[in-house]
């Protein structure tokens, strides 16, 4: 499977394009880094790939087909701030099971404790919440994961734990990962290929 963005142009304000004529592609099973200084449109491209934004021109396709608007999106985006990405009035168990029912061993290796399941999101830390947000997007139907600064606000140990699990899952399911980050070392460690948007 190949996720491909062709000739993407996007501008938040008229006449000031963030992305102009950008091409980007990723095969399933591949891990691609996406980096650039702030304001170069990394996150914008991530949102376009995941269908959160519609580009003014250009197309996003999977194996040459454009995505339907309804149904499960095989391209899932993970946000940088997990506390905004969960419904504050849902308990953690319900949040985790919204898209699919993750198997017990994935929950455990993600470092999620059984005790957290009955809590409200406001009673967990950012790192703890992010494990839930990552795991709920790792359904087998997810073919590509866009990790937009997914672990930037977490400590080193949590980062390593989450990435280990995501990589293991990607290998098992042959899922592609786009890693959007400022961190050179993280990208070099995780990705076979790094794309610079400012280059």
């Amino acid at each position: 499977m190949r996720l491909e963005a062709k000739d993407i142009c996007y501008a938040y304000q008229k006449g000031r394009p963030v992305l102009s004529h950008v091409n980007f592609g990723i095969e399933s099973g591949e891990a691609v880094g996406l980096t650039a200084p702030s304001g170069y449109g990394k996150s914008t491209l991530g949102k376009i790939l995941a269908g959160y934004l519609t580009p003014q021109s250009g197309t996003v396709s999977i194996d040459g087909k454009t995505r339907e608007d309804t149904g499960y999106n095989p391209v899932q985006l993970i946000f940088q701030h997990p506390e905004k990405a969960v419904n504050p009035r849902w308990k953690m168990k319900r949040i985790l099971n919204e898209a699919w029912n993750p198997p017990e061993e994935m929950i455990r290796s993600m470092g999620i404790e059984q005790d957290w399941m009955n809590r409200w999101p406001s009673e967990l830390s950012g790192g703890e919440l992010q494990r839930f947000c990552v795991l709920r997007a790792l359904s087998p139907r997810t073919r590509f994961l866009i990790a937009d600064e997914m672990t930037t606000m977490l400590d080193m140990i949590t980062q390593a734990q989450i990435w280990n699990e995501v990589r293991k899952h990607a290998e098992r399911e042959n899922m592609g990962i786009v890693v959007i980050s400022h961190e050179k070392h993280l990208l070099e460690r995780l990705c076979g290929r790094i794309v610079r948007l400012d280059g």
Partner: protein
Amino acid sequence: MSSELKTEKDFKKAPGRLRPVRGTREQAILHISLFLLILAGIMIAGSRIPSGSIYVDLEQISQPPSLKHLFGTDWVGRDMLTRTMKGLSLSIWVGIICSLASTLTAALFGILAPTLGGRADALVSWLVDLTLSVPHTILIILISIACGGGFRGIVAGVAATHWTSLTRVIRAEVLRINTSEYVRASRQFGKSRRYIARNHLLPHVIPQMVVGTVLVFPHAILHEASITFLGFGLPPHEPAIGVILSESMKYLTSGQWWLAFFPGLCLIMVSVMVSALGRSLERILNPATAYKK
């Protein structure tokens, strides 16, 4: 640090702990049930008093508060406690009907406007601004007279003016949730509009509506009393608080303070109580504050 926390936890779990744990939740439930009991008591007491018990007794005119007449008697010897109770239960009825009607209007407009968007949204915002731009009292008087006055007029007037702020709150809430990251994520998971409305939207909007209904209540009964006081509301033969207060004005100068003091105090107490009830409800419905100790 962690050992300290552990001992505290153990202490709470231990049987026969030293003092009961009273968190926000327990306190709020206690308040709410107490207030509801008092309000229900007033309503039942007020509706069970037969109208014959408010009789003219010329031997007992203008008695100050005593054990026999706790709130005193008026210038024709009627017992003020009985009149106040009757008036309060009438006020509570007006309050309940008005706040329910306002909430229904607010829910309808507040959810439809952002859902339909465009012109419908602009129209609702314009209606809210229009209603808010006219002073409440004048608008209630006008609507009340137009509807033929009396109980029906006052209910229509108050209900037609108190839906505005709640409409704004609900509209803003719906807009905020529909653009939130968790709803967008839900859409990416392939969830339908109906699923999102039921599972993401309503759990936020319903608590707002419940709290809104309760918080409109004190406004409604105070407006009812003030309009009746001015003579545009309930007719003078009804034992309404507004009627009692406006009649007592004539006798205040002759030192009969109890005629206005006790009914006024009761009205204020009922409004304060209901408003406290609304705030307690708000605390336990919000997960961020529900379990605070």
